[in-house]
């Protein structure tokens, strides 16, 4: 028994060297009594070292639940019921976050994997200064004095381009705008140099100019620090700007993952194709009055996570649907170089 434990993790061999994180057939359900909301129902995705994987999908497709599963921060009654989350630590060993004991998870949170949450206005504790909250994180993971931690916290604020950083350290969240708070969240997440950053729609709540600044900032930080990013968004424009690879989620599953150029050039899943058609194209869509943009929304609705159809979850809305699709769920299969699609008929696209 002891010999087995001290041997290098058998998982290490299963993950290619350049992969930092790989979720395999992850299932996360919210179980209330007899009903289970299958918010994540078979997610497979891969983040490569130093790259950005963008996860896109409509509201409710399970993006946040996936990222919270990776951090193991699911709110009660959410539970990972099946699947693996393989993560390569800085020292090269691979662990399965889905089953890692809570105690080891704690050493990973903040230090190895840091997260920026979707809600910038409420994710900071209103009762502590911004500086205290950043310093708390630094001192949890590194043996620094208060003074040193404070200096690092100030540097972090400067890094995310917050002016008058020294003064800001002593301010409370309510004294800052949404954009500032989101920068603070980013500074907080980056303060221990995580190997992987999970950013859950970090720019959605912000206005467009600040959004552009923050994207720019994250790109630069990635280049400088060399971290990997899992970037969640439902904005395909942002994807084009920041991602190396894209994973498309629909009703709790990844339906397609591919390098960003390949995906935009030739989507291999009808849902992705539908999504791309939704991107406003000023030339194509200019309405008669010249002001309003026409969108091409996909007809139909996302199925309820309480009651998913048995076969392909996209079948009810799919233009390519055939009887076969409604009986059996397709697997995630190769559909080109580095391209995966969860569609029986991807050849047709």
């Amino acid at each position, binding site marked *: 028994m002891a010999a087995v434990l001290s041997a290098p993790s058998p998982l290490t061999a299963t993950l290619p060297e350049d992969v930092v994180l790989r979720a395999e057939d992850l299932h996360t359900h919210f179980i209330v009594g007899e009903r289970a909301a299958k918010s994540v129902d078979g997610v497979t995705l891969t983040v490569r070292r130093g790259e950005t994987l963008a996860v896109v999908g409509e509201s409710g497709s399970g993006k946040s639940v996936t990222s919270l599963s990776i951090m193991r921060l699911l709110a009660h009654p959410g539970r990972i019921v099946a699947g693996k989350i393989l993560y390569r630590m800085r020292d090269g060993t691979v662990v399965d976050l889905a089953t890692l004991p809570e105690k080891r998870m704690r050493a990973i949170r903040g230090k190895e994997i840091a997260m920026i949450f979707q*809600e910038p206005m409420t994710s900071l504790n*209103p*009762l502590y200064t911004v500086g205290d909250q950043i310093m708390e994180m630094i001192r949890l993971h590194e043996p620094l004095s208060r003074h040193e931690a404070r200096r690092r916290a100030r540097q972090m604020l400067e890094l995310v381009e917050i002016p008058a950083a020294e003064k800001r350290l002593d301010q409370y969240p309510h004294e800052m705008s949404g954009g500032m708070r989101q920068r603070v969240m980013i500074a907080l997440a980056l303060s221990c140099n995580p190997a992987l950053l999970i950013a859950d729609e970090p720019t959605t709540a912000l206005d467009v100019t600040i959004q552009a600044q923050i994207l720019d900032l994250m790109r630069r930080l990635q280049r400088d620090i060399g971290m990997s990013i899992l970037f969640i968004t439902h904005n395909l424009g942002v994807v084009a700007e920041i991602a190396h690879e894209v994973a498309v989620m629909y009703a709790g599953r990844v339906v397609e993952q591919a390098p960003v150029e390949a995906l935009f050039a030739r989507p291999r899943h009808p849902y992705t194709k539908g999504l791309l058609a939704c991107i406003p194209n000023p030339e194509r869509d200019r309405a008669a009055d010249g002001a309003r943009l026409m969108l091409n929304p996909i007809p139909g609705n996302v199925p309820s996570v309480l009651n998913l159809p048995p076969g392909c979850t996209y079948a009810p809305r799919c233009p390519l649907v055939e009887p076969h699709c409604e009986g059996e769920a397709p697997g995630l299969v190769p559909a080109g170089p580095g391209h995966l699609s969860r569609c029986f008929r991807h050849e047709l696209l």
Partner: protein
Amino acid sequence: MTRYILQRLLGMLAVMFTVVTIVFIIVRIAPGDPAAVMLGPDATPADIAALRARLGLDQPLVVQYLFFLGQLIKGDLGQSIFLDMPVTRALAERAEPTFFLTLFSILIASAIALPVGILSAYKRGTLFDQAVTTFAMFAASIPSFWLGLVLIQVFAVRLGWFPVAGYGGPDASFLTRLSHLVLPAVALGVVSSALITRFTRASMLDVLNDDYVRTARSKGMGEFRVVMRHAFKNALIPVLTVIGLTAALLVSGAVVTETVFSLPGVGNLVVSAVLRRDYPVIQGALLVIAAIYVLINFGIDMLYILIDPRVRY
């Protein structure tokens, strides 16, 4: 912040003023002539008239009210009819047991309620949580005087660990006096822990799912620190309010408990004043206790400033 303090201060004064008026009215709605009631059936009309004059009862109500306000501002609560001393002195002489009884009860109640309420919210839905909820409801159903009697039966009469009643006489050492307070403080503390437990649990439930608590976890800190430093501090404001409220309620709990344990406190004074129709004493005690309640609430409003930076602006 100055505005906040001023606002609270004005609010407090307004409530105080209304309290004073209500007390004035209560004491004066007594049917019949208080002077006659106080002196009993054998009093001569001359005696009654003399007492009426002494109490100012022969004046019109408005004059009485203004006189009453004037005396209050001077800190004069009038003269006790039976104790032959100013009401303020009667109250001051009995303040000690009541003060310590209230203090110890609130400490006992908080020592039970805070950890139990926090843990119960943290483990919501579990057997422990259900047990706590049930126990809290049960404790809130126990009359404190009954619990006091049961404690006396068990710990004073049977086991002899604590004195049965009293405050140890005039020369008793502080330690002896304390030993007289143990059982009453436990009786009051247990009963009032119920309310604080339920409130702590509810406010913790409110904050435990807040986003910043999740942020704290995402930093990689232990659960104890997450719960205490990040969640509980945010739950503290409503909890403090209830603790303050309970402290005020305890003063009235003390009225009953002091009788059970024959403690010579303010509560005991009130009961004997009611039985003897010593109106000035009733009136004074009511005023002082309501004032304490209002002051405690004001104090808690001021504590918010320390806890919540948002109030400071």
